Each structure stands twice: as structure tokens, then as C-alpha cells.
């Protein structure tokens, strides 16, 4: 499991626009670099990021090798109701890492 940092407010007012910052530790190997033997190092990147709010998709990103190592993404969403915000990152091997954060909306 890669290390993940997620920053979002624990509480928000109903209808408030909140900022969500996410970072996951990952080398984002481009596939264009050459290894010590001169052969290309195989590509290994996170190519998909998804954020759902109580099951509803609120943000999605498709990433390419031009995204820097340890992909950092920030975006906004409207705090509609208390519940779960789920983040998932999927890499080239099809492996997905999922993190869940709670938010209280009053």
C-alpha cells in the first residue's frame, strides 16, 4: 500500500464548496527512461483517479506519464450531506488503492 495524504475539512456547512487535496506516493515511471543496461524501464504509472461522495462520482482524472512522481491532485466539491468521500487510484497493473474519509455537514 502506497502512502497517501488526503486533506479535506472534517466539517463543512451545507452547500459549502470545499477543497480536497490528494497525494499518493508513486514513482510514475514513464516508460521512456533507460535503465542501467540501456533497456527502457517499463512504464508503471497511476493512470486513473476517482473520487465519489456517498457513492456519487464527483471527480475523475485520467493521468499520463507527464504527471510528476507522487501524483498530487487538488479539486473542489460541494459539501451536500454528511457521509463518506472515497478516493481510489488505479495503476497500470490494474491494482486499485482505496481510501475513505468522513465528512460532517451541518
Amino acid at each position, binding site marked *: 500500500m502506497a502512502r497517501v495524504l488526503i486533506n479535506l475539512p472534517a466539517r463543512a456547512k451545507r452547500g459549502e464548496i470545499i477543497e480536497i487535496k490528494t497525494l499518493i506516493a508513486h514513482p510514475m515511471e514513464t516508460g521512456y527512461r533507460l535503465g542501467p543496461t540501456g533497456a527502457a524501464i517499463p512504464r508503471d504509472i497511476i493512470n486513473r483517479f476517482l473520487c465519489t461522495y456517498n457513492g456519487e462520482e*464527483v471527480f475523475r*482524472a485520467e493521468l499520463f*506519464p507527464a504527471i*510528476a512522481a507522487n501524483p*498530487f491532485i*487538488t*479539486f473542489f466539491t*460541494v459539501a451536500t450531506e454528511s457521509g463518506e468521500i472515497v478516493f481510489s487510484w488505479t495503476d497500470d497493473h490494474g491494482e486499485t488503492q482505496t481510501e475513505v474519509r468522513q465528512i460532517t455537514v451541518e
Partner: protein
Amino acid sequence: MDERSSDPPTRRLVLFTAAGLGLAPFAPPAAATPAAMDEAIRMLVGKATVKRGRVKLELPPIVENGNTVPLTVTVDSPMSETDHVTDIHVFNEKNPQPYVAAFDLGPRAGKAVVSTRIRLADSQQVVAIARLSDGSFWSDSADVIVTLAACAEG
């Protein structure tokens, strides 16, 4: 055949095809071309015209390290049910691939602002294109000077 040589026939094919089209494969002198970027943009927008404005692409004008360049795209939109940004795409001219990232958002976003950090293989122009819910496309571009290119350590 070892694993490495059996794995990338598709990539090699892609690179050769790219070379045939006049785009050098990445190897040290980095190299997609502005034409490749234009083609990628055309694939996205089809025949629609892309208007300048409404989108603001923020990148530092001079970057010391191309391995991590902060980028923010802001789109001027009320983000309501009937008038919102559906997706934002970022392209570059001179990295090996013209695509940098694509972001899907909707009225739930509240604010059409997205930030990330990107790699730049050379001094070049970066373009952001936003598609609105009415189907129109808007863009902005930024020129960046890179002193230490990404991938340079090879």
C-alpha cells in the same frame, strides 16, 4: 526472450509509427511535436472550434526543475446543473506524448479549479482545453521555460 523484450512490442510499434509520422521517439533529445499536440486536440474536439478565454492556465513562466511543475486550471463557469464544465484536458508540445491529463467534473464540483504537478521535457507551450455542458470548447495556453528538463537524467 526475456520479459522486457517480450513485453513492449506495442510500444515499439507505437514509437516506430510515431517516427514514421515525423515524431522522434523519446530518447534523449525529447520529442513530440506541436503537430502531434494539434492532432491530439483535434481528436478531442472534432470539428468544433476552440475559443480562447474563460479558461485560465497557470504555470510558472520559468521552471528550474521540469520533473515537477505546478499547474492550475481555472474555468470561469457558474457550475450549475445547466451550465457547467464537463471536462478539462491538458496538452503539451514537446513531451513524448501530447496528453498530460484529463479531468472529468460536473455541477457537484462547485468550482471548476483543478491543480496538479506535471513533468516538462523541454521549454514549450502547454495548452488547457475545457468542454462546457453546452458542448463548446474553450482554451488557454502558457509558455514555460525549463532549465533542467524532466527525464534528463535518463
